[in-house]
């Protein structure tokens, strides 16, 4: 059994006054194994964020299941084993970096001492130790992304789910994020992340999945997905174009 198990997951919305039905995900099957770094690729509107939202319990599936460690993400208990960073995250800007991490630590029932130790280690790890008493409203986008990663790791999670973690980061920030993900992998953590940036996926992922219009069109190791003399970007373009309805 994988750390993430998605079986026949379908998510449909009713939009607008006419209640138009939009199918965001259709019969998605996916398994992520322990210790893997899994890259979830797809163009805008493919359903990556919807999949992640169902996984972490922010959305309910229309049909099918999305399980973490054998439990639905809507079960609050199972969420104690995960760390999550949303896409372009917004945080409580009136909090200082330390207060911010302490708040999330309390949601995991961590002791004051644990929160103090974890917060100071994480702020050092993400390079924000000199800003620990600065309110988040004064943070740049890159700093917010880094404090976002720190909150996702406050509980020392077994599984880290990141939605577009590289978005808005400059090349240095992206490199640091890749290094951080490698460090997490070396600690035995499972990482599931979505991205638009194919190069990042190529250099750090064990396996990738390509989602187009709510359907998983390819899944496997990069060498299983690319054809001869193809880069992952070429393969991505080929698969996406095949998946776009004429």
């Amino acid at each position, binding site marked *: 059994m994988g750390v993430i198990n998605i079986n026949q997951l379908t998510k449909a919305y009713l939009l607008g006054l006419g209640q138009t039905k939009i199918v965001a995900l259709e019969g998605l099957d996916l398994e992520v194994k322990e210790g893997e770094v899994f890259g979830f690729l797809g163009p805008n509107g493919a359903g990556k964020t919807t999949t992640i939202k169902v996984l972490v319990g*922010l959305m309910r599936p229309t049909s099918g299941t999305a399980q973490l460690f054998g439990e639905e993400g809507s079960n609050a208990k199972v969420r104690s084993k995960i760390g999550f960073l949303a896409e372009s*995250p*917004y945080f*409580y800007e*009136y909090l200082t970096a330390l207060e911010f991490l302490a708040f999330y630590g*309390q*949601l*995991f*029932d961590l002791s004051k001492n644990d929160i103090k130790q974890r917060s100071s280690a994480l702020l050092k790890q993400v390079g924000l130790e000199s800003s620990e008493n600065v309110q988040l409203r004064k943070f740049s986008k890159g700093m917010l992304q880094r404090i976002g990663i720190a909150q996702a790791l406050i509980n020392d999670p077994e599984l880290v789910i990141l939605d577009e973690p590289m978005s808005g980061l400059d090349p240095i920030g992206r490199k640091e994020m890749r290094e951080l993900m490698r460090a997490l992998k070396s600690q035995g953590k499972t990482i599931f992340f979505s991205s638009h940036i194919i190069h990042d996926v190529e250099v750090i992922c064990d396996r990738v999945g390509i989602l187009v219009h709510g359907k998983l069109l390819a899944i496997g190791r990069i060498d299983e997905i690319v054809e001869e003399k193809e880069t992952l970007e070429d393969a991505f373009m080929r698969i996406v174009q095949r998946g776009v309805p004429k």
Partner: protein
Amino acid sequence: MKWRAVAINTFRETIRDKILYNLLIFALLLIGGSILLATLSIGEQAKIIMDFGLASINLFGILIAIFLGVGLVSKEIEKRTLYTVLSKPIGRTEFLLGKYAGLLLTLLVNTSVMLAGLYLTLMLNQFRWGLPVLDVEARLVEAVFMTYLQLSLITAVALLFSTFTTTTLAAIFTLSTYVIGHISADLLAMADKLPTKSTAILVKAIYYILPNLSNFDIKGLVVHKVPIEPTYFFLTTSYALLYITLLIATAAFIFKRRDF
């Protein structure tokens, strides 16, 4: 006890909000300024200050409860801060309870500061006229307690609207509930005089569904030293608690079923 972390965070958020300070300073200025107004009447200065002060506490309490209450959940949705919180091991009902408790704490602190301001103004008035400084109406606490109950109820109304609509609409709905809640006795009287039976039933239904907020208004009785039975406090408190429980249960029912 994760709701406590949410409550403390909400309290921290509200006390760092400039709106709160603007309203609080304005309220204190009004309460303090009533000492000037009181000079217009001879012999009734304390009554005027109490009337004016209690009305200010009520008005500014309501403004704070509505302005901050409607943003409790809708602002978290609009700003997407909710995504990170709800991905943690906290139930949605517990989160709602934390938000509610946090704002109640803010309201408690504000109401206490305004009440302290009112007592200070009354003492200054006593001092000014050469009367014993501490000889001020102790029963103001009773009136402010009832105001606080009303604020708690209005905050629960705001929280309910906040779970399924935008901040602006929630503010309009909560304000409407507050206004209708104060004229609900008139609604009942009006229902009996309506020509069509269906309209009368509708108006009566509104009367029974919406809270009767005039129950919480004992300002006049306190200022004019009319005694109030302890049973009245017990029944009104029970009424508020029951109403708040129903409102929060409905808010939790809606909130648990929402997709974000």
